[in-house]
């Protein structure tokens, strides 16, 4: 893998300071920083070929449409989807889940049906399903979790019934960093003909996701969590499902023919991309995926494993500290609490030392309720972080303990 100093040089923000101290960015699960190639790609769109896609007959519109479709192809190959038409560009994970919850719900859910989610979901994979259940008088069933931050499969199997219409689960817990047994979840659902949506918001950037191997029916993720621009996202759906679902939004580009009597819809994937999409963002996202591939996804996973191991060592060496969930087998996200010290107090002081962490419930209130805590401090690392930065986190925590006890 490329040398760490060269990697860091690709991310201009990593060499900036806060309060006169070098920025240590450990909030990668919230959003990731962008490499220069992504910034340059977006600039190129606006300086060289900014024009509306799929509409113009002129040269730069053609170029923009072509780059946009190339971006779709890049996402397809990144996920190893079978067909390019199975890739829909959205505004992010939340947008993707809302689209499925609406369209799938319209077509397949009726009163008394059941939707299965899990206790580990972030709010984005709970609320759209709750809204659907309310609209259709369906019921939401929740796969329970255990103390280790893992879903309990035995209980999940018991939840499946002839009334189950869809299962929506996260690949990786955003609050705890634990990797969930989605393959088992999918096979069990498929054995009774139920489709599964996998929320890849915290999974896509930490390893190799092959949607055909996984055999999930829908897979969603956000561009900004994988080094791409904010406001971009992907909805992968198997052709057999997407071609059955009604469109989520109406507008331009998603139609074949419009009269006031009847409108016929365009084919996949355009049927699900109403209006002018965030095409510069999608092209930027493809550039980010290219960057990740150039580093190598196996290399990234190996490096993050090494960082996680070191972080676990440093943190478990602090007796007052308790790690919630991740025992070292998860992704490089660690949630923790320090005895008697509020996560906000910890976060505020770490911030003044230049260390950016997330504090609070991480948009996953049910997970906090499970542990009967208000929130945690979450340090989420990725390949561009360093051993020295982790050591700084350790000394920062020691300082916090000194200040508040």
């Amino acid at each position, binding site marked *: 893998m490329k040398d760490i100093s060269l990697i860091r040089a690709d991310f201009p923000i990593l060499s900036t300071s806060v*309060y006169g101290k070098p920025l240590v960015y450990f909030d990668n699960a919230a959003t990731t920083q962008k490499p220069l190639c992504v910034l340059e790609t977006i600039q190129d769109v606006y300086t060289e070929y900014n024009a509306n896609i799929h509409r113009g007959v002129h040269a730069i519109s053609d170029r923009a449409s072509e780059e946009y479709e190339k971006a779709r192809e890049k996402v397809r190959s990144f996920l190893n989807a079978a067909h390019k038409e199975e890739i829909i560009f959205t505004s992010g994970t939340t947008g993707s889940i809302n689209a499925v919850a609406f369209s799938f719900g319209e077509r397949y859910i009726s009163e008394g049906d059941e939707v299965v989610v899990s206790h580990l979901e972030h709010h984005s994979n709970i609320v759209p399903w709750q809204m659907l259940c309310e609209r259709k008088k369906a019921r939401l069933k929740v796969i329970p979790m255990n103390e280790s931050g893992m879903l309990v499969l035995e209980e999940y199997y018991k939840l499946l019934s002839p009334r189950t219409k869809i299962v929506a689960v996260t690949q990786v817990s955003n609050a705890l960093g634990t990797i969930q047994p989605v393959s088992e979840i999918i096979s069990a659902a498929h054995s009774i003909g139920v489709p599964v949506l996998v929320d890849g918001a915290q999974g896509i950037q930490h390893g190799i996701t092959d949607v055909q191997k996984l055999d999930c029916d829908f897979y969603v993720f956000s561009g900004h969590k994988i080094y791409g621009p904010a406001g971009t996202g992907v909805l992968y759906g198997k052709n057999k499902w997407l071609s059955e679902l009604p469109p989520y939004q109406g507008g331009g580009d998603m139609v074949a023919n419009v009269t006031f009597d009847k409108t016929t819809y365009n084919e996949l994937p355009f049927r699900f991309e109403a209006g002018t999409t965030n095409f510069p963002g999608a092209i930027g996202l493809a550039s980010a995926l290219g960057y990740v591939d150039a580093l190598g996804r196996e290399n990234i996973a190996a490096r993050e494993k090494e960082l996680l191991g070191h972080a676990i060592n440093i943190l478990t060496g602090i007796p007052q500290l308790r790690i919630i969930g991740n025992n070292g087998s998860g992704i490089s996200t660690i949630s923790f609490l320090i005895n008697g*010290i*509020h996560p*906000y*107090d910890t*976060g*505020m*002081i770490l*911030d*003044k030392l230049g260390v950016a962490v997330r*504090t*609070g419930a991480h948009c996953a209130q049910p997970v906090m309720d499970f542990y009967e805590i*208000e*929130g945690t401090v979450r340090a989420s690392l990725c390949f561009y972080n360093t051993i020295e930065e982790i050591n700084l986190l350790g000394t920062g925590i020691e*300082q916090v303990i000194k*200040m*508040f006890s």
Partner: protein
Amino acid sequence: MTIDQVQDSIIEEFSVFDDWMDKYNLLIEMGKSVPVIDQRYKTKDYLIEGCQSKVWLHPEFRDDKIYFSSDSDAIITRGIAGLLIRVLSGRSAEEIINADLYFIDRTGLRQNLSPTRSNGLQAMLRQMKLYAMAYKAKMGGS
């Protein structure tokens, strides 16, 4: 001391320190002298919305003045509540309503508390003013 005199001495106390860690230590110290809210008021009714950590604030009306007590599960937040109480507690409703709290900017506390934290500070202040307005309305109406 008037509200502004108290504000000026707070600004003075913070200006002694250059390093933000020292300023935070001062804030933590200030949190220790907050008039602690009676346990029976630590309920949802006295919980302030808009703070990510929990803050309770209780007003007591005595001799035409309002006395505040508070608590928070975060120590820095408790320090901030302590500062606001030091400035506004034991004042008339009129004084609290009209107070211009310039010390928040002049101590640099506004910029240096994270936006959510700053909202917490704003929420606390708004609640104090609301209590004062409610008290004034009640007195005026009787």
